[in-house]
């Protein structure tokens, strides 16, 4: 049950990555700042990915609801992973 829960959360996370990465890399390159990349990856790009899902893939949330995972839990999980990734990128660039 826990394993399935984690696998589904990671699947949701993967589904937000393409839009988030494209926006965040562009944002980082335009500003030439790792901090800007991290900020976008955690907030702006991630919000854009969620917005895209809300408009075009809203019904797919039922895949997760049917496994007992709420939208709030998915967003918090992804946000924390994005924070972790941004911190790791920042540390690597120091």
């Amino acid at each position, binding site marked *: 049950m826990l394993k*399935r829960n984690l696998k589904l959360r990671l699947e949701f996370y993967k589904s937000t990555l393409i839009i988030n990465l494209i926006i965040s890399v562009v944002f980082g390159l335009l500003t030439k700042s790792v901090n800007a990349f991290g900020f976008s990856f955690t907030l702006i790009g991630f919000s854009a990915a969620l917005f895209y899902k809300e408009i075009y893939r809203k019904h797919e949330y039922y*895949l997760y609801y049917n496994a007992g995972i709420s939208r709030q839990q998915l967003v918090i999980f992804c946000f924390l992973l994005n924070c972790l990734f941004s911190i790791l990128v920042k540390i690597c660039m120091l």
Partner: protein
Amino acid sequence: MKNILEIDSIQKYVNKDFSLYDVYLRCETGEILGIFGRNGSGKSLLMKIIFGTEKADHKFIRINNKYINQPYKVGDNVVYLPQNSFLPKKLSLQKILKLYLDKDCIKDLIDDEIIQKISASKIHELSGGELRYLELKLLLKSKAKFILLDEPLNALSPIIKEKVIELIISEKATKGIIITDHDYNNINSIATQNYLMHQGSLKKITSNEDLIFYNYLPNTF
């Protein structure tokens, strides 16, 4: 084990012309409740309120005498088949099965003519009927105590419709099932109780005459 789902006192204001009120339902393991109603009568809204993804102004939901605010969040209580497909198009069927089911359940699920035919496909490669059948089977083979099906027979070919009905009947023994659909004849043939959503409230239906009385079926039916 017999499980009992009770839904009572559901109230939801939607707009000045429509609100849900006076809704009471009780579903036990082994029962199939059919809910009919015109388009826009609030059937899907009611299903989502029961499932827990839609808020209501007031609701009281109990499973096995235990009050639960959002049933979908707690254990293997309830699953819901929405009207639109919920499986991500990019994923393969194999990936979905691994994500969703235990090994034993996967064996049980793929031991099926239709599923075997599409087992190497990605979701976007499936026809509407195949996709609906897959979604339905995924949910019916889950460990959930109650299954909410929102128009499961919509736009299915007669052969797949028949398979879906067989599938629902075969899972009835271990689950309670609530179905909304416009396919009156098919649902009526498998349902143990029928209800009509009429002007925001649920009316128990015991015969075709009741449905004619509430203007759901034409007088000529």
